[in-house]
């Protein structure tokens, strides 16, 4: 009996302890997917979406960045930079959005952010990642993307041109400038903010980095390793990708024919994908975007990475041969066999290890540490971070870092709490 009541008071005490500790901590985080791979692939189930307007006046536009540039005929359609805008009718602050690796100005994630910021009263200008093919061809000065400082300069140049156009053509009133980006776009945002301190074209009020990598090299290595989870090895890239598409196809066949917001979630459940396959899928998705980026860059500079230097491609050339070759190569192949040698030869980029270290947020941590307008939103279990790298944000940003317990890589960006936090960052 005594034993029993002792046990009981222990349990009650423990319960109280737990209750107070969870009361002391922040409120329970309600994003439903705890697994890092599933979250990264599936994103946010639609019933957890933030409430956003269905339609906003989100228009695609073009701007010529280098009017005298000779565009290779195979990319004749990419002579101008594509971007999109959603403008308020009244005086309002403006926010620039920068997309993640290989993603476009009007891709799903940027569009979702545009809806949120437009609803919150911002003029929105949405930019593709410097790794997006159209950006590589039309707006990258060197034509070799992935370089922290050059990408920032390219973005800044584009933002200045777009700003000029907005003032001339749209006659809008802008009350201040803000900046955000996710994934590589978050990384880019940090460097753009730093550049702005010298150039002063915008004097950003607030800058939010969403799920950025710490070290580009670490993250691309992780992504390459994920692709190695392809059953049967990377040699099976094409077959794996095809199987996957057939898997999605099977789900599509059984569906009512619509690829809605929950399609991937349903597909994931129906296909019973294992963690290795999910990791492989993430690696493959990144690889597909890197394949296009690398090929566009190779054509632009005539470096001779996969295309022979002397070979001239036209708009009618069959490119499948290069497609197969380049999609078999990883980010790290690009880094070592093209990216680094290119900058070593053209700009005396120092030795390889120093170069790797310079392509990181660590490299500008003094700036990040001392600049209160820059904040970060991240996830404890982001798959593009090495173990322990998340602590960099706690240490450098302190209170300015909002770190969610889960969400994988950008999986929780549409979740209502996250959207509320994004908006709050710029409006409070």
């Amino acid at each position, binding site marked *: 009996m005594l034993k029993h009541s002792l046990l009981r008071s222990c349990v009650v005490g423990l319960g109280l302890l737990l209750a107070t500790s969870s009361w002391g901590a922040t409120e329970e985080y309600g994003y439903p997917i705890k697994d890092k791979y599933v979250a990264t692939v599936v994103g946010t189930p639609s019933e957890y979406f933030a409430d956003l307007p269905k339609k906003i006046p989100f228009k695609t536009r073009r701007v010529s960045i280098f009017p005298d540039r000779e565009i290779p005929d195979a990319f004749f359609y990419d002579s101008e930079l594509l971007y999109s805008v959603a403008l308020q009718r009244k005086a309002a602050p403006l926010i620039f959005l920068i997309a993640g690796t290989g993603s476009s100005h009007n891709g799903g994630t940027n569009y979702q952010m545009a809806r949120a910021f437009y609803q919150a009263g911002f003029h929105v200008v949405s930019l593709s990642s410097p790794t997006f093919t159209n950006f590589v061809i039309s707006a990258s000065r060197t034509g070799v993307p992935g370089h922290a400082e050059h990408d920032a300069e390219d973005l800044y140049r584009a933002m200045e041109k777009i700003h000029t156009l907005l003032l001339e053509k749209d006659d809008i009133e802008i009350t201040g400038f803000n900046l955000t980006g996710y994934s590589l776009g978050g990384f880019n945002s940090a460097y753009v903010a730093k550049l702005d301190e010298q150039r002063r074209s915008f004097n950003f009020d607030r800058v939010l980095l969403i799920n950025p990598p710490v070290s580009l090299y670490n993250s691309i290595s992780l992504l390459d390793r994920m692709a190695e989870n392809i059953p049967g090895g990377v*040699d099976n890239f094409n077959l794996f990708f095809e199987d996957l*598409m057939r898997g999605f196809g099977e789900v599509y066949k059984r569906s009512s024919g619509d690829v809605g917001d929950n399609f991937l979630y349903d597909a994931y459940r129906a296909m019973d994908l294992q963690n290795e396959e999910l990791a492989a899928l993430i690696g493959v998705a990144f690889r597909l975007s890197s394949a296009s980026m690398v090929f566009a860059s190779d054509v632009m500079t005539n470096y001779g990475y*996969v295309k022979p230097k002397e070979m001239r491609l036209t708009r009618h050339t069959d490119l499948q041969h290069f497609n197969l070759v380049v999609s078999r190569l990883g980010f790290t192949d690009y880094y070592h*066999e093209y990216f680094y040698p290119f900058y070593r030869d053209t700009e005396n980029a120092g030795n390889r290890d120093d170069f790797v270290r310079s392509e990181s947020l660590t490299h500008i941590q003094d700036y990040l540490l001392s600049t209160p307008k820059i904040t970060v939103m991240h996830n404890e279990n982001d798959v593009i971070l090495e173990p322990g790298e998340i602590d960099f944000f706690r240490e450098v940003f302190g209170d300015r870092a909002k770190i969610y317990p889960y969400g994988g890589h950008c999986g929780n960006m549409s979740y209502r709490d996250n959207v509320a936090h994004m908006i709050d960052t710029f409006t409070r």
Partner: protein
Amino acid sequence: MIINFLRGALLISVFSMAACSTGPTLEAEGYSEPVFTAERILSEDAETRAASDVYDPWQGMNRRIYNFNYHFDRYIFLPATRGYQNVTPDIAEEGVSNFFDNLRDVNTFLNSVLQLSPKKSAQSLGRVAVNSTVGLLGLIDVATMFGINRPEEDFGQTLGRYGVGPGPFLMVPVVGPSSLRDGIGLIPDTLVNSYLKEEIFGEDGATIASLVDAVSTRSRVKFRYYETGSAFEYETVRWLWTTKRELDVAK
């Protein structure tokens, strides 16, 4: 972003990975060797390559038509859809689109009968019956509100049902990716559709109706030529489309 990529791929209703064609042999043409060559990178395993093949013997012509479609889209079709959307209230746009979908449901019904599919025949006939009456001549999609699924069957699928293979890949001017089989299938489908429009609007009215139908349909397809960000867009569209049609036939 992965989601976006995959959803994008599926949304365009086009599935990727493309045909093959072995490509130029570098040595024979006197080029200097790039860092990575096919010989170094691709395994000898022929299956690895063959899996992604789409039969495309008319590639030269197809690529030119793809190019033409880009220009047609950019300078004629898309400006027309923007104009249409600017002058038409959203609710009217939906009505117009429902109206033409209802005509297409008639064609789906005919093809479902030809395919001897009782379920799809019943669904499409039910849709036409409900939408043409309660739905005010098809302007309101009451059938979907009632929960009647909308199968889509065309003559290309009907031919596929009876074992006709897709044949060579074919890029159709204005319309987009197709195959020889599906391109031929467009002919009876278009005849049925035109017949219905002529019955409703008369001969001259039918022409205008077809133009409105085309613009309305285009305004609902998100795909933009050369804006996918793939450096291999033609190859990607070719594979995605071919895969999607295989699934449509099996569905």
